[in-house]
């Protein structure tokens, strides 16, 4: 999994690409936290999943963990452009209730 980010108009966009499973999550988690900590003043955080080709329930755990982290600073977080298969996993998990899809 590859992780990139950009800041546009005070919003932090995090782009995940490749496959998010238990193996890639171990490395990805610290990188995500590093990006969030380095942009602590972001008004919103948007996880763009358009290039994420695979995600299983490990991904739900990782996204929920980041939601909880961002909630502490009152920063809303969102999901953007998931593929059909990733969207299915996110829907089943109910993640959109806390991280709406935009």
């Amino acid at each position, binding site marked *: 999994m590859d992780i990139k980010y950009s800041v546009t108009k005070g919003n932090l966009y995090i782009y995940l690409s490749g*496959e998010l*499973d*238990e*193996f890639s999550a*171990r490395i990805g*988690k610290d990188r995500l936290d590093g990006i969030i900590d380095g942009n602590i003043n972001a008004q919103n955080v948007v996880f763009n999943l358009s290039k994420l080709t*695979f995600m*299983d*329930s*490990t991904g*739900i*755990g*990782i996204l*929920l*963990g980041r939601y909880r982290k961002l909630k502490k600073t009152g920063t809303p977080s969102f999901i953007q452009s998931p593929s*059909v*298969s990733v969207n*299915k*996993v996110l829907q*089943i*998990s109910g993640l959109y209730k806390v991280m709406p899809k935009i």
Partner: protein
Amino acid sequence: MDNKMTIKFSSVSENEAFARNVIASFLISSDPSVEWLSDIKTAVSEAVTNAIVHGYPSGGGEVEMKAEITDKYLHIVVSDKGVGIENVDEALEPFYTTKPDEERSGMGFTIIKTFTDKLTVSSEKGKGTTVDMIKYFDGGEGNI
């Protein structure tokens, strides 16, 4: 065409992607839809990750994946000889996890249930766990 395969691999996280790619390759000749294939890859990933993370918490061990395909269904069995699950019914509940501090979602079995047509989990403490999954090509309840 009926076909069968069995593989055994080390219980290491790198093999989660390997197992997904093996099942995808096995299915190529049956020409499944993109969505059907993606459901299977996700279900396999959940079962194999469970074996690696929960079956063998201190590493070591082997995971076995068997698959059988007919013109009606795909049957996959993922098994380990690890620590086993004490209470299978509890483990099948959505959001149930034994490792909440590791940010595990507890949704693995729920996803397998949703993405396949039949799931059977059998486990014995200290002896291991077997996850048996069936998915029909027509999405129906055809008899085996």
